[in-house]
């Protein structure tokens, strides 16, 4: 194989090698050959120098002390911007829109380069936290694969064009009244876009306007329309809730307000101050909410309505809940055969709901039919559940599936001559039965505005580069309607333009910039006379105060309810899936979402919370069903439905419902970019307008071919001995107890600690001054991976690619350990139910760190403020420290993982953190760069460091604030107080390593009389195994 060149234009061979070889493990050697050795550690200097120069920054440090006088320029600004101190980071409030909801962000900018996105405290959906996807979006900004120019594709030819060329075209094509013109846009909450849309439709009254999102909450919207006559937005509140009943719903992760909901849930689960929030979950596949459930029942998604209906029946029959006349029909609605387990679960839940009138809530997931949402709405109404409704911003909008359907029909009829596609990627993600790609060919002039020259662009006549969210002006609204601003942090790197700019261009208003459009729109909502002040305030805060929509008083709409009841009855009669006719549930991927993030290395390498799979999607199958079908774990399964085949590797997931399989959308991209191309299987091929979420009556068979999924845990099929031992250790590592047991006996988390006295051969080290420590609350951790991406972004952690992950060389400093707790005595293929627990694991900075004493060159030592410092530039790479680390949290640079990175990607690096060279060890530093920054600042103005002033990236972004950092020597600091709690324990304390990071035990809140834990090993059983440990 020839040595690859680093060529920015043709793209980085590092990535190419990844996606080319991603499918062919046997080429591992070849991959390794493509990481040429670093030139004696100077690469980091070299690269940093390059891009700092590019950015005209004021300082560039480089060179080795060893070599004599390396020539090194300093390039100061010719005119330094007002109030800018080069080298000092600045923060800007902006936002990101996903699926038509804006999420507020606070972006750190370093010498003009946005390098990290954090949550905006003032934003109702963020509260300072940020999802993994939103954080990773910044990598998209610097993606070298983004399209850099306009393309015109005509008769097989491809021409590079300029914006002025396009403007010329636009002027004539959008001249008329809009007959034959259609616009396909993604969902957007942007008032400015709404304004520009109206301007456009004014200018072209005949033009058609369609909005399509592959992933949406339209079913919920339609459900409320059924019940209340008009679509409403559901605004759950769970901070003071006693009971949460989730039916296929994942409020803690898969919801526009998931960050807020997770925060509220954590508050409600607090053992002392919380209201309990007993969580019931009925779902087909593990969701993060399901992981946290106190009572979880795995049933196929198509059975969920049956359970809900039964709950309704019981509420009426046994708990004398009187449904309004119009909804009386629900009382009789019941599924055909229903299992004992389902009945017991329904009984328990019904009783609890009845007992928590006014403090309970029923939530239904976006994949369930409107009728199911309708029933939930009715019950919530009658139970006075803790949720509000707000008006839908665009009530007349048809559902996305309908919209794309109508457009397809128009295109089929040939009446569309000009199609303007604003963002989105319909050729890839439109329902398969529409054949959108073929239809597009019939449209004479099709224009696609997009970040990438993707599947859709390649079938359109025009491709227009789109400006990234951090490059363009804009706005949006939070889930609750709060007005959210978006400002650019950097001029468009690739000459892209935003949706509103192109749309206003198409409206004939040529030269209007996004900046002017947003200001023009804001003027309307600007109450105060002083607009500039208002504008500056809005940009500073990122949100505009008290612009959330008012909640609406709801009244049931009898006329429509009848329809809803019939709809539900129709759902109940469908016969349940079986192993030979299983259902396949299509879900939004937790990382690449609907596929738009497929080219994002951070997200591709982010382990899925449950499966820990990276660089792939997999067909999730329950162990029992897998056995029944004779499909092995990792075997490539052939999913056949509606005449189409999809081949996808199987992942046998305990806790998956029998006869129900789950497959994530967003993979199998063909024109995503060098990272995303050909990764995983394309599930959209199974998706139809009729059944966009649940493919029933599919057939699944094994292909006999096996495929190794790059997982960051359980890297290989586990043997019986290992399986047993793993089950045995879980209880000791991740301690859990019911809240009642804890209240009765606070020592419950420690009573299984049996080990000899932890005495040292020497007298203990004295620690004065600030002593940094951490507390991680397993009771509130929901395993959402936000911390993992935050750490990756903050600490310049490389993406290593599938082959390296397969080789167990992933580099993330913090990982979320996932354990299954299963009934004892079961083989790994007999598990039907398994409880899942998460444990964020990173360097715990042991006081008696095993890694330190074994390092021959003292490259890792203990600092006076209690950190276990890792000194990259001293490390010679013996890897002894990693071997001797009982938690295995150290990461080694087996190659120079930054070597082939594009200069643009390097612009994301955090200059406060050394870019590690090949051959050195690295690990969590408690974000020492943040500690130092605060310390120097505090020392400069002679004040002590305040508690909570230093926040590591992981803690900062945690939606549930499960991670607390602070000074252990200060008894009043919050971390000290948490360490005082009885729930606090240290993992592997028996090794006398004295971790600086402690864990707070996990609490379950099971209903009284529920009997022993229905799923997973009883806690006592799991815990009791600690006792021999010494």
């Amino acid at each position, binding site marked *: 194989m020839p040595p690859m060149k680093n060529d920015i234009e043709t793209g980085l061979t590092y990535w190419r090698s990844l996606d080319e070889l991603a499918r062919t493990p046997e080429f591992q050697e070849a991959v390794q050959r493509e990481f040429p050795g670093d030139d004696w550690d100077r690469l980091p200097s070299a690269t940093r120098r390059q891009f700092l120069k590019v950015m005209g920054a004021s300082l560039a440090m480089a060179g080795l002390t060893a070599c004599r006088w390396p020539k090194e320029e300093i390039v100061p*600004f010719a005119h330094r911007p007002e109030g800018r*101190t080069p080298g000092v980071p600045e923060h800007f409030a902006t936002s990101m829109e996903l699926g038509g909801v804006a999420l507020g962000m606070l972006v750190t900018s370093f010498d003009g380069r946005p390098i990290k996105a954090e949550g905006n405290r003032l934003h109702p959906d963020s509260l300072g936290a940020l999802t993994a996807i939103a954080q990773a979006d910044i990598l998209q900004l610097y993606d070298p694969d983004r399209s850099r120019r306009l393309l015109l594709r005509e008769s097989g030819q491809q021409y590079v064009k300029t914006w002025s060329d396009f403007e010329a075209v636009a002027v004539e094509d959008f001249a008329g009244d809009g007959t034959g013109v259609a616009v396909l846009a993604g969902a957007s909450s942007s008032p400015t876009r709404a304004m520009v849309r109206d301007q456009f439709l004014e200018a072209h009254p005949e033009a058609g306007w369609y909005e399509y999102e592959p992933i949406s909450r339209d079913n919920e919207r339609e459900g409320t329309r059924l019940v209340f006559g008009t679509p409403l937005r559901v605004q759950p509140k769970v901070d003071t809730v006693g009971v949460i009943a989730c039916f296929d719903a994942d409020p803690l992760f898969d919801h526009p307000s998931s960050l807020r909901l997770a925060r509220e849930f954590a508050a409600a689960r607090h053992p002392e101050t919380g209201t309990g929030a007993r969580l019931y979950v009925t779902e087909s596949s593990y969701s993060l909410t399901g992981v946290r459930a106190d009572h979880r029942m795995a049933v196929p998604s198509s059975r969920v309505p049956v359970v809900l209906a039964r709950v309704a029946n019981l509420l009426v029959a046994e708990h004398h809940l009187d449904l309004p006349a119009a909804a009386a029909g629900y009382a009789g609605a019941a599924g055909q055969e229903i299992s004992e387990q389902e009945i017991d679960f329904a009984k328990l839940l019904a009783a609890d709901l009845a007992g928590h009138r006014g403090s309970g809530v029923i939530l239904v997931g976006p994949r369930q039919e409107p009728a199911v949402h309708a029933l939930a709405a009715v019950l919530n109404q009658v139970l006075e559940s803790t949720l509000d409704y707000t008006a839908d911003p665009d009530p007349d909008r048809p559902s996305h599936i309908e919209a794309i359907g109508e457009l397809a029909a128009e295109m089929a009829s040939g009446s569309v001559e000009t199609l303007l596609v604003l963002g989105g990627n319909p050729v890839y993600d439109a329902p398969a039965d529409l054949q959108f790609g073929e239809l597009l060919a019939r449209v004479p002039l099709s224009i696609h505005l997009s970040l990438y020259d993707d599947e859709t662009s390649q079938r359109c006549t025009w491709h227009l580069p789109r400006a990234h969210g951090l490059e363009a002006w804009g706005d949006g609204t939070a889930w609750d309607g709060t007005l959210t601003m978006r400002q650019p942090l950097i001029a468009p790197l690739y000459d892209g333009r935003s949706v509103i700019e192109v749309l206003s261009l198409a409206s004939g208003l040529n030269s209007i910039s996004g900046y002017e459009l947003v200001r023009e729109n804001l003027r309307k909502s600007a109450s105060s006379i002083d607009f500039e002040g208002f504008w500056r305030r809005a940009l500073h805060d990122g949100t505009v105060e008290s612009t959330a929509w008012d909640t609406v008083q709801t009244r049931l709409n009898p006329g429509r309810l009848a329809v809803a009841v019939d709809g539900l009855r129709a759902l109940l009669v469908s016969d349940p899936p079986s192993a030979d006719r299983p259902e396949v549930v299509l879900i939004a991927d937790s990382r690449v979402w609907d596929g738009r993030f497929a080219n994002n290395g951070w997200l591709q390498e982010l382990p899925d919370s449950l499966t820990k799979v990276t660089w792939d999607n997999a067909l999730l199958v329950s162990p029992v069903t897998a056995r029944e079908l004779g499909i092995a774990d990792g075997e490539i399964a052939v999913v056949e439905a509606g005449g189409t085949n999809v081949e996808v590797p199987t992942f046998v997931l305990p806790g998956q419902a029998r006869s129900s399989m789950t497959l994530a959308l967003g993979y199998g991209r063909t024109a995503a970019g060098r990272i995303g191309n050909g990764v995983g299987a394309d599930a959209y091929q199974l998706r139809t307008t009729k059944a966009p979420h649940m493919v029933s009556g599919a057939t699944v068979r094994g292909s006999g071919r096996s495929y190794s999924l790059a997982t960051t845990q359980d890297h290989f099929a586990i043997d019986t001995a290992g399986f047993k031992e793993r089950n045995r250790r879980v209880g000791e590592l991740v301690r859990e107890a019911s809240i009642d047991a804890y209240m009765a006996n606070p020592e419950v988390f420690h009573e299984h600690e049996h080990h000899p006295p932890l005495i040292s051969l020497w007298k203990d080290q004295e620690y004065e001054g600030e002593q940094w420590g951490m507390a991680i609350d397993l009771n509130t951790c929901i395993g959402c991976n936000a911390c993992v991406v935050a750490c990756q972004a903050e600490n310049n952690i490389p993406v290593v690619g599938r082959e390296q992950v397969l080789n167990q060389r992933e580099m993330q400093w913090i990982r979320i350990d996932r354990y299954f707790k299963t009934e004892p005595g079961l083989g790994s293929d007999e598990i039907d139910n398994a409880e899942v627990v998460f444990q964020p694991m990173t360097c715990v900075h042991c006081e008696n760190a095993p890694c330190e004493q074994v390092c021959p060159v003292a490259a890792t030592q203990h600092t006076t403020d209690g950190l276990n410092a890792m000194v990259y530039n001293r490390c010679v790479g013996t890897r002894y420290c990693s071997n001797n680390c009982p938690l295995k949290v150290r990461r080694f640079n087996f190659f120079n993982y930054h070597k082939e990175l594009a200069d643009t990607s390097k612009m994301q690096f955090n200059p406060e953190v050394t870019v590690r060279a090949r051959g050195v060890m690295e690990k969590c530093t408690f974000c020492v760069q943040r500690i130092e920054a605060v310390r120097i600042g505090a020392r400069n103005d002679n004040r002590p460091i305040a508690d909570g002033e230093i926040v590591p990236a992981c803690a900062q972004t945690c939606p549930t604030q499960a991670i607390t950092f602070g000074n252990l020597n200060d008894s009043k600091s919050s971390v000290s107080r948490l360490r005082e709690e009885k729930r606090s324990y240290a993992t592997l304390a028996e090794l006398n390593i004295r971790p600086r990071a402690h864990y707070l035990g996990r609490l379950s809140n099971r209903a009284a009389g529920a009997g022993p834990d229905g799923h997973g090993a009883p806690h006592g059983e799991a815990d009791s195994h600690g006792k021999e440990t010494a």
Partner: protein
Amino acid sequence: MNEDKSNDIFIFPKWTGVLRPAVAVGALGGVLYAAIVVAFGFSPQATDVGYEPVQPVPYSHALHVGQLGMDCRYCHTGVEVAANALIPPSQTCMNCHKTVRANSEKLIPVFESYSTGMPVEWIRVHDLPDYVYFNHSAHVRRGVGCVSCHGRIDTMEVVSQQKPLSMGWCLDCHRNPEEHLRPADYVFQLDWVPEEDQLVLGARLREINDINPPQDCNTCHR
């Protein structure tokens, strides 16, 4: 008859015996020489000190600071507030040179930069490795004078590196800062000399301002 025999058998010549001391001395001396070369020849003191690159603009600190008495902070604005002392933007130069020496040929690069907006590419003199995070404000605010690390800049026509800037050299000061501490007012006064013994003064200042320079790795390496 021994003579003729001794000719046709192999023997070592007599001088090999004489050679013995020479060989011994050579061996020992070689080792010593190597040690000296490594110890001094490779040290930053020898390799780095005295670096005096030619700058695009023949800016004279001796003139501006030494004779005109400009304060360091007039140009190096970051030194008290940020990690970087900062090289001034061209506009700072122009503040005076709009009028002063407005047509000096030496200043052409500055004029160009000012008009075009393209930076003047100064050559870095005091250069630390990438993995070293030095913070000017942290030192200046504690009363470490510029002169401690940069030498008598105010006497330099062309700036050159005066100190090794090696890790060992940094540590010397972090271990006993007394030798370099001065009252805040004199930090930027390069020719200042204490009336009393520096060590006494330093010890007192250290006491007053509670200065305990950290020696942890992560003080400079992150």
